[in-house]
């Protein structure tokens, strides 16, 4: 032993340094086994079951804002008013095509003949001599004619003159009474404008009248957005997890369709419609991947289902002047289907490609379509119309083959805007 050894032994040999206060707790915690099973559950339940957490200060304001009622009733009332107004406009007897040049150009039907008679009567009354104290512009307000009797009641000093009960065309022999009417001198008031003069028509409308033409073939082109609702059906219980996975990872996006159609007039009211429609059904596909620092990264892509269809629609037209309504309904035949995109399968860590499985049909399928086309004649030629068409389509059959684990169904609703042009 050296003196230096003695110095340290005596100085530090019996030293009792301070022990950290939490050392025993740390050792005890290390020694204690981490609870398992129910004990682990209790550890969490005891501390978290009744836990109260601070609530953000603006939460009540958010709830109040979220509870504000949406004015659905107002929108519904407006829509109802609009529909009622439209129905009244189209179905009210006085708002028919009376007096239009269309009726004059095609005097084939009995209704148009009656309209012609009305026009003739009006023209006749307008041209009759009238008492000096009655202004020329009020002459059309004379008592109505009895169409069936063929006679006009004597009124306001105008002698009763028999009118023909049959239609008048240039090919048919003119009745004597009409010949007498035609031979009457037609006075033209000095104040009459050129438009009111005989031969210039009796319409009080502007100088350039509206002349919709009536050709049998019309072509139309429409384009518009749509909502396609996707549903899945499973053949077996084992595929339920696949259905669940797809239901929570695929959401509808804005779809659209483009239609080129040909319209053929069968009768005054009925048409048939056919053509080609391209439909693009789009769904957003969302899934999470684990990125850098183990953080979940949300990935978004778009799944596309493309269809080529032939619509075969029957159409009924509610007449009007410039504005008309067409109710269309019928089947749509799907000629081709193509799919691109991804989906989640519970058995795989990575998303799978929809097109790889060959689960989707590639051709024939049948759906149903109903639509309401509102048309508006553009210009005075009457050959071009602006179209606004809300539509609904339902595909009762699956878009996937019968052997596919999931049957994929859709219904679709949308709004198309387009143009219609008369051909010949």
């Amino acid at each position: 032993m050296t003196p230096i050894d003695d110095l340290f032994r005596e100085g530090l040999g019996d030293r009792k340094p301070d022990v950290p206060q939490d050392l025993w707790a740390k050792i005890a915690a290390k020694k204690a086994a981490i609870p398992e099973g129910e004990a682990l559950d209790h550890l969490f339940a005891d501390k978290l079951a009744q836990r109260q957490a601070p609530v953000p200060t603006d939460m009540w304001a958010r709830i109040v804002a979220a509870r504000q009622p949406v004015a659905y009733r107002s929108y519904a009332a407006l829509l109802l008013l609009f529909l009622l107004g439209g129905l009244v406009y189209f179905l009210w007897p006085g708002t028919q095509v009376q007096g239009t040049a269309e009726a004059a150009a095609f005097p084939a039907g009995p209704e148009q003949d009656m309209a012609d008679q009305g026009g003739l009567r009006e023209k006749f009354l307008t041209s009759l001599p009238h008492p000096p104290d009655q202004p020329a512009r009020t002459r059309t307000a004379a008592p109505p004619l009895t169409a069936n009797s063929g006679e006009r009641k004597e009124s306001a000093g105008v002698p009763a003159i028999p009118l023909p009960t049959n239609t008048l065309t240039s090919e048919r022999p003119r009745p004597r009474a009409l010949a007498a009417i035609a031979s009457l001198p037609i006075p033209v008031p000095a104040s009459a404008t050129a438009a009111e003069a005989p031969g210039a028509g009796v319409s009080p409308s502007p100088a350039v009248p509206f002349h919709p033409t009536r050709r049998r073939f019309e072509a139309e082109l429409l384009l518009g957005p749509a909502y396609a609702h996707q549903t899945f059906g499973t053949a077996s219980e084992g595929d339920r997890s696949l259905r669940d996975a797809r239901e929570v990872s695929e959401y509808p996006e804005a779809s659209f369709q483009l239609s080129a159609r040909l319209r053929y007039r069968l009768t005054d009211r009925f048409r048939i419609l056919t053509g080609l429609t391209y439909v693009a059904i789009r769904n957003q596909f969302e899934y999470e991947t684990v990125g850098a620092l183990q953080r979940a990264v949300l990935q978004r892509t778009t799944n596309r289902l493309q269809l080529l269809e032939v619509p075969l629609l029957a159409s009924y037209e509610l007449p009007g002047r410039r504005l008309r309504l067409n109710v269309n309904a019928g089947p749509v035949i799907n000629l081709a289907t193509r799919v691109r995109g991804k989906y989640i399968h519970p058995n795989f860590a990575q998303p799978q490609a929809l097109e790889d499985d060959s689960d989707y049909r590639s051709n024939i399928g049948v759906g149903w379509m109903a639509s309401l086309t509102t048309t508006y004649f553009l210009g005075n030629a009457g050959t071009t119309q602006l179209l606004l068409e809300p539509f609904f389509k339902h595909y009762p059959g699956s878009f996937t083959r019968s052997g596919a684990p999931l049957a994929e169904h859709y219904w679709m609703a949308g709004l198309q805007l387009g143009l219609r042009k008369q051909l010949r």
Partner: protein
Amino acid sequence: MLSMKEKDMIDGSLRGDDRCQRALFERYAPLLMGVCQRYCRTQAEAEDVLQDTFVRLFAKLSQYGFRGSFAGWARRLCVNVALKTYQRKRFTLEQTGLDNVPEGAGAPTAYADLGELELLQLIQALPDGYRIVFNLYAIEGYTHKEIGDMLGIQEASSRSQLLKARKVLQQQIEIRQRIAI
């Protein structure tokens, strides 16, 4: 047994009294926020679920009918809203389960010292499926059959998810403890 004040609040809320509705919110929002935080991964998601819960709570208040505890009824409603939100949200790749859990997240803490916040963080770090099943079974007290019906999964899947959740939680607690010592 309802306290008179609570009954007044509910009656007033049913009549559309704003003050009663506000009082009901003030009283139960902290408890329901605690529930929301357990079911959601982030604070923003929890706030959204809490908001939806109260919107539905006031809309369906007439269905309560003073049968049983109001807190229990509100809590069940909150859990249902959270589950619906979870089901609406994206599907997470749970088959990679354990790989998704960040290791050693949070401050090093001995298991005996784990507080509410640490336990909450551990639950929030679980994959969605594990977190939901663990919450429903271990904390809410639902059976596997009930969980299966609620989530539309097999009873066996619920058991399996619970076991995996427990395993992940044990691992996480062990990691924190090792670092602490």
